[in-house]
């Protein structure tokens, strides 16, 4: 007989089944969103070496610092010999002492000393310091400020000596050491934690408000047309007829085509020279000129909305049609008997019973429309002159064209907050119906 194998009871099995998905959701969704919030509180730029890491405290870039320190000592010694006046010699000694004092304070911490030695060894072998833990050393904010201040005053002293010196070679030597002190100064990094400064900046940023306005305008107008047209189409095709399959397929294809591909197609149709839609609309005098569509802000918004309505009305119609088909026909028969006309039937039976399907469809569509990216990015690129930019496009450009992750994250958090607000309003409207039937 086989031994009875270890078995999970229903509850344990349930948790074991849910856990992997929950963990994934936390790791790939919730954690990154929290990170975005965190990033938005920093002056965090990938293309600026002094701000390419998020730092709560001041840090020293040991790679640069140790390398510079090695040269500073020997150069200052050499300068002490070339200096002519006693006063200049005196100044140079003071500088030497000052730097030595700060440096010994820095390496008085055993751990720091170890790291400095390690970095030194790597540098001696001309190897880059790739390990960020080794490269950056957290230091006291006051110490960093003090050291920076000292270094910049030493730099000025040396520049002053260089300027007063008559000898050209000596002048170059002094200037070189002054520059070295300047670069050492820059290796001592200030904390780039700035709290809510990015938010304050965007609160006053015209381009942000414009992109938010564009996004809202796009969302409201296109979702409105999609709802009205979708309802109309659903009501018309909610009957038995030949060729339903054809209709369903033709309705699904625009939905299934990648938005970026659809945007390229419409870009061709709207093209000022060879675009057929631009040409026909121009001939029919609906638009001021065939180049209006893609070369003006208003035309751009119109083009974007038209393309979106084309792509998503079918989806809306399908959702509403599914809702329509759950309404029992007996209701209409009964109202026919009572002598109600078609309009009364529509407003008293169809609409009230469709309410929840329509609200759910609206929720999904509104959120989708609000985070619009592909369509605008491919069709107009946000142009001309940022006039059709959506907030997602603005956030993307800030993060990846300007490499500014701090400000870009701020914009993406703004998108996130708007989306949260919209869903909150809808969920209030829909109530718990969304979950009904799914949990018991």
């Amino acid at each position, binding site marked *: 007989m086989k031994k009875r194998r270890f078995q999970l009871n229903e509850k344990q099995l349930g948790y074991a089944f849910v856990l992997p998905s929950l963990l994934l959701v936390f790791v790939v969704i919730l954690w990154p969103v929290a990170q975005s919030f965190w990033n938005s509180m920093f002056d965090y730029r990938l293309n600026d070496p002094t701000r390419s890491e998020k730092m709560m405290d001041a840090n020293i870039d040991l790679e640069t610092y140790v390398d510079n320190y090695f040269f500073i000592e020997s150069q200052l010694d050499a300068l002490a010999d070339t200096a002519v006046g006693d006063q200049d010699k005196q100044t140079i000694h003071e500088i030497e002492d000052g730097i030595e004092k700060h440096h010994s304070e820095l390496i008085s911490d055993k751990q720091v000393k170890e790291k400095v030695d390690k970095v030194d060894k790597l540098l001696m072998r001309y190897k880059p310091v790739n390990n960020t833990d080794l490269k950056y050393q957290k230091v006291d904010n006051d110490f960093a400020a003090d050291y920076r201040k000292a270094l910049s005053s030493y730099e000025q002293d040396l520049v002053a000596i260089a300027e007063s010196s008559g000898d050209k070679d000596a002048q170059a030597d002094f200037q070189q050491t002054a520059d070295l002190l300047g670069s050492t100064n820059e290796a001592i990094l200030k904390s780039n934690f700035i709290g809510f400064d990015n938010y304050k900046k965007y609160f006053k940023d015209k381009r942000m408000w414009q992109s938010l306005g564009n996004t809202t305008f796009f969302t409201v107008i296109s979702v409105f047309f999609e709802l009205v047209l979708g309802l109309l189409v659903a009501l018309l095709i909610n009957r038995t007829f030949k060729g339903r399959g054809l209709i369903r397929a033709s309705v699904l294809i625009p939905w299934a085509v990648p938005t970026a591909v659809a945007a390229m197609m419409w870009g061709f149709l709207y093209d000022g020279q*060879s675009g057929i839609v631009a040409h026909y609309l121009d001939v029919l005098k609906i638009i001021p000129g065939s180049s209006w569509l893609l070369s003006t802000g208003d035309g751009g918004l119109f083009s974007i909305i038209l393309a979106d309505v084309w792509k998503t009305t079918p989806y809306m119609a399908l959702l509403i049609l599914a809702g329509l088909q759950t309404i029992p026909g007996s209701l209409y028969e009964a109202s026919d008997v009572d002598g109600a006309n078609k309009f009364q039937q529509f407003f008293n039976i169809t609409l009230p019973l469709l309410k929840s399907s329509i609200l759910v469809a609206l929720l999904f569509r509104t959120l989708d429309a609000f985070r619009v990216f592909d369509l605008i990015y491919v069709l107009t690129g946000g142009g001309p002159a940022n006039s059709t930019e959506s907030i997602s496009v603005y956030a993307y450009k800030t993060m990846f064209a300007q490499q500014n992750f701090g400000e870009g994250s701020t914009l993406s958090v703004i*998108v996130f907050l708007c989306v949260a607000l919209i869903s909150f309003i809808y969920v209030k409207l829909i109530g718990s119906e969304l979950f009904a039937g799914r949990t018991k």
Partner: protein
Amino acid sequence: MNKRAGIGFYVFLIIFVFLVMFPFIWVFLTSIKPVGEIFSSFNWFTKNPTLDSYVAAFTQRPLLRYMLNSFVVSIVTTLLSVAFASFAAYALTRLPIKGKGLILGIVLASSMFPQVAILSPMFNIVTDLGLRNSYLGLVIPYITISLPLSIWILATFFQKIPYELEESAKLDGASPFQTFRKIIFPLAAPGVFTTGILVFIAAWNEYLFALTINSNDSWRTVPVGISMYTSEFSIPWGDISAATVIVTIPIVILVLIFQRRIVSGLTSGSVKE
């Protein structure tokens, strides 16, 4: 309802289908025109049809490579997320665990998160793992879209399976896991398959992550690849329309075969029955 369809109705249908399909029709007609004609006339039909644009679409850019990339990434994403999601959805609908409402709420909320809010940390994670310009580098971010979607749709499908079958299995002495594997999973297979199709389409169409993470041309997916056909000096509409036709054909086939399933999957999340 059984309203009869008259001539007027069919005229309306034809106009509707024509309007919806017009961009495809026009792009197809353009793709077989000689390049000179595209820029010089608005004639619908060309007298000299040619496949030059198709040849150019394949040779100017690695279109086949884009399609392969999209296919691999979408398939892996679909398999992974549907596997994880079917366990989770089963537990959420059928097993006596606590906090179901909360978990479903988290799932629904995360499916509504704007992708741009995940973009920069995800970019850092993928870069740190050394996965930029690889398939896995896209599969990880795609899970953020596909997992909540799959759980949400699958939960509806599992809900529809009658309880009686489960109970009789229990009475026959099946363990909970056996019930899941032998009774529920086969019954839910059509729903799982439908979810798979929807997730596949969602992954195939994704643009933002693909644009930022796989920036090397030989790792680009179809949507990004197509959007890069424009060059700085001229827009090769012939190549673009041919490429569009080529990448649309698989979607049309998929839709034609699975239209019923797609519709049931799309509507199951939003309509109560």
